[in-house]
Every structure is written in structure tokens, then in C-alpha cells.
């Protein structure tokens, strides 16, 4: 391959998606038939807390009524100060995240400074919108986005819809088949001044409840040692919580349920 070099009028600018498109590298899922059993990822949530935001997702992927993966990852860093989690058709979703991560990195390198947090959310919304023809065929991808806004010094969260609609929420967002249950749990107990530990406990509880009532959402799996992925985003950047910490939070929550049942 020769060095990508464009004339003044054809230059794709700082957009990697546009550049990849010139080389025919962007995937097109829109011609896939709607009746195929496609792997789906399920519940993801995010909420703000005193120092930033947490973002979390369960590990189950389903294909029709079957469980196709037990340890799928749906939560990813999109750059140093933001994270993205995805629910929906797994193939296009993973590809979208890969492209989104590269898009932010590419922009940062070309321009010498990162996009604003709002700009990042906007980029993601354009990618979701680009997926609309595929969504009409059943390949729905609906992400959530959380980040630390370094200009305003606080955590912010966004939800999206299939058409690329971008909605910033004050405190919490959720997406996927179990999102109704998860959102209700967070709604009842969320406080903006809560600590990191309280925020993690809250999303753990939300994902547990979602798994309890939604067959497509995976709960904690102590047998295989598989737990939801939880990450925090603060002024220090994106950090995934250790699996042992999440396992501890789950076992103490399960313990509290045991006691309730015993009483």
C-alpha cells in the first residue's frame, strides 16, 4: 500500500471512518436478512457519582433462546477519559466500538488535541445513525456513553436511540433487554454525591435485578468466576475495577438477600 495522500478537495480530514470508507474498509451490515438468529448482547448501565461516572455491563450474549457467550465484554474504554458500553447485535456492536475508539484516537493524533466530551458523544451518535439501515433489518445497536468532562470537571452520561438520537441524562442511563429493571433500581437509590463504592454497589444491584427478571441478561457466575465488567471514569481517567472487587460486591449483595429471605 502506498501512503494515503489526498488532494485538497478529497481530503477526509480528521475522520477515520471517512478515511476507512475511502479504502472500502467500513463494514456494511444492511443487506443481512432479518430472519437470521444473530448474537445479541444485553444489559448495560452507567451512572454519575461524586468524582465522575461508572459504566457497567453483564457478560451474556444470546442467540434466539440460546446463550451463545458467557463471558462477552460489552464495556470498553473509548479513550483515556471516556467509556462506551453496547447492547444489541454483537457483531456490528463490537465493530462499532473498534471504529469509535480509532476515530477518537485518530482525531487526537491528527489535531494534536482530543475532542471535547460532547464531540465524542456526537461522533458516536453519527455511527449509530449510520447503522440505521442495518437496524431496520434487525441488527439494532444501541450504546451508552459515559465520560469525565475535563472542561466542566464532572462525570456525564449519554443514552442513544436507533436513529442516532443523542440524549444526555442528568444521572443515569441504561440500554438493552434488561434495561427497564436496571434503570428502576438505579432511579430509586441514585445520589449525585455518592462515592465510587456506593456507585459500584448500585450498578451491581441493578445488573443483578436485571438478570433476575430478564432471561437474556447474565447474572454473576461464581461457578466459572465470571462477573459483570464495571469501570470508573474520573479525572485520573478510565479504570476497570478488579474482578475480585466486583465478586466481593456481588457476594455481599447476595448475602443481604439471603438474610432478607431468612427473615
Amino acid at each position, binding site marked *: *500500500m*502506498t*501512503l*494515503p*495522500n489526498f488532494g485538497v478537495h478529497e481530503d477526509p480530514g480528521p475522520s*477515520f471512518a471517512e*478515511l*476507512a470508507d475511502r*479504502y472500502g*474498509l467500513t463494514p456494511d451490515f444492511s443487506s443481512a436478512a432479518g430472519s437470521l438468529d444473530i448474537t445479541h448482547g444485553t444489559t448495560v448501565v452507567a451512572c454519575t457519582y461524586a468524582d465522575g461516572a461508572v459504566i457497567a455491563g453483564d457478560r451474556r450474549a444470546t442467540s434466539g433462546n440460546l446463550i451463545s457467550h458467557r463471558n462477552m465484554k460489552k464495556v470498553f474504554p473509548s479513550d483515556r477519559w471516556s467509556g462506551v458500553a453496547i447492547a444489541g447485535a454483537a457483531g456490528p456492536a463490537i465493530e462499532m466500538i*473498534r*471504529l469509535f475508539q*480509532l476515530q477518537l*484516537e*485518530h482525531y487526537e*493524533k*491528527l489535531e*494534536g488535541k482530543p475532542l471535547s466530551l460532547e464531540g465524542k458523544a456526537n461522533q458516536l451518535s453519527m455511527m449509530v445513525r449510520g447503522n440505521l439501515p442495518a437496524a431496520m433489518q434487525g441488527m439494532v445497536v444501541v450504546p451508552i456513553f459515559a465520560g469525565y468532562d475535563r472542561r466542566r470537571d464532572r462525570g456525564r452520561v449519554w443514552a442513544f436511540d436507533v436513529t442516532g438520537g443523542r440524549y444526555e441524562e442528568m444521572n443515569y442511563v441504561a440500554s438493552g433487554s434488561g434495561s427497564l429493571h436496571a434503570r428502576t433500581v438505579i432511579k430509586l437509590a441514585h445520589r449525585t454525591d455518592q462515592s465510587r463504592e456506593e456507585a459500584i454497589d448500585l450498578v451491581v444491584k441493578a445488573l443483578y435485578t436485571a438478570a433476575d427478571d430478564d432471561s437474556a441478561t447474565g447474572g454473576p457466575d461464581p461457578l466459572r468466576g465470571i462477573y459483570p465488567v464495571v469501570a470508573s471514569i474520573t479525572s485520573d481517567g478510565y479504570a476497570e475495577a478488579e474482578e475480585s472487587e466486583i465478586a466481593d460486591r456481588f457476594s455481599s449483595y447476595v448475602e443481604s438477600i439471603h438474610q432478607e429471605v431468612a427473615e
Partner: protein
Amino acid sequence: MNMPFYVPPEQMMRDRADFAQKGIARGRSLVTIECADGIVLCAENPSRNLRKISEIYDRIAFAGVGKYNEYDQLRIAGIRAADLRGYTYSRDDVDAQTLANQYAQMMSQVFTHDVKPMEVEILVASVGATGADDRMFHIRYDGSVTDEDGFAALGGDAERIREALDGVDTSSMALSEALKLAVEALSGEEPLTADQLEVGFLDRGGEGRCYRRLDNDEIAELLQ
């Protein structure tokens, strides 16, 4: 229609080379040094915004001297090539040598075919797990590539800097030591200060994206 005069190819190449060299000699110089902590890239650059040094990929950095718009065009092309390659294959498959060859190809094409050769010299540096794995490729205006070892000097003052650094063993130096050496070599009679310098650093011990730009405060602190 005017008949073009016959110009012997040797003459034409020489004229083009002279033209490019004169353009490069007008600009300020740049030096890169491989040390124990990684690779330090240091340029005399009073501008805050028109940068000479940039990140290309996880362990690869770019430096250019000469005409700003021309080396910046090369920098952008390099980032695009690296990101496309990483997207198509994997992040591990992006390497400095491929990139250096691509640059050489493009610059030699411009040198022989375009109206005017590029008035730039560039460097592609990649930091390895150990000093033995470090790579630095110096690519000149005509597309000729040299594989540099230990240090590299680019720009009008390159000869003088090369003489100053020749024979110095930098392999066990820390970042601050290597930066001091680089600044010393770059400086003329007056030593350069932090606000006249642009410094990039490829961190050997880093994970993922290992490049970072040092700000003025950090440069001043390291030079103390």
C-alpha cells in the same frame, strides 16, 4: 510553442537537490536520542502551535524539519497509513520500517516527478522493549533512507550536532540526562531554554500508546 531546452539528468537532479538542501538549511534543527528510558525527540521550536514532533502510533513517533506544510502533510499521511494498517490487521502489525519505506517511496516520487521537491527531512522512530529493538529511520528530501543508531540529527545544523554527539554512549542514560545532552547539542552559543524547545518522548516502559509530549514545566524541571 517554446521548445524545452535539453537538461542532462545529472544536472537536473543536482539542481533539485541543491534547491531542497537550501530550504532545509534555513530551518532550525532537531535531535533524537535513544536512552534507557526510551527515545527522546527534541527540537528547537519557538512556536507553540506549529509542531515538528508528533505521535504516529503506539510505539512510533514522527519528527520533521524544513517547510512546515510539507512535513505536516507527511505526518498526517503517516498517521493515516498506521491507523489503517492497525485497523485492517492488528495493532502489533504496525511497524516503523514499513512506514519508512512508504515515506521513501512517496518522497522519491515527488523528488523526480513533481514540479518541486519537498524541502524536508523526516525521522520515524520506534521504541522497543530493549534498546536493541529501537529503530530510527532518517528519510531525506530525495527519498533516501538511513538507519540511525543511538542518535539522529536533522536540519541545517545537523553536521555540527552529529560531531558533538558522535561516540557518546547514551544507552544507559535516563530521560533527564538524554534531554540535557540533546539540548546541549542543539544549542549554539546561548543555551536554549524550555520555552524555545519542543520535546516528545517515547516511553519504553509504557503500555499501549507510549508517546507523550512534555510541557514547558516538565522540560524545565528535567533540565535542572
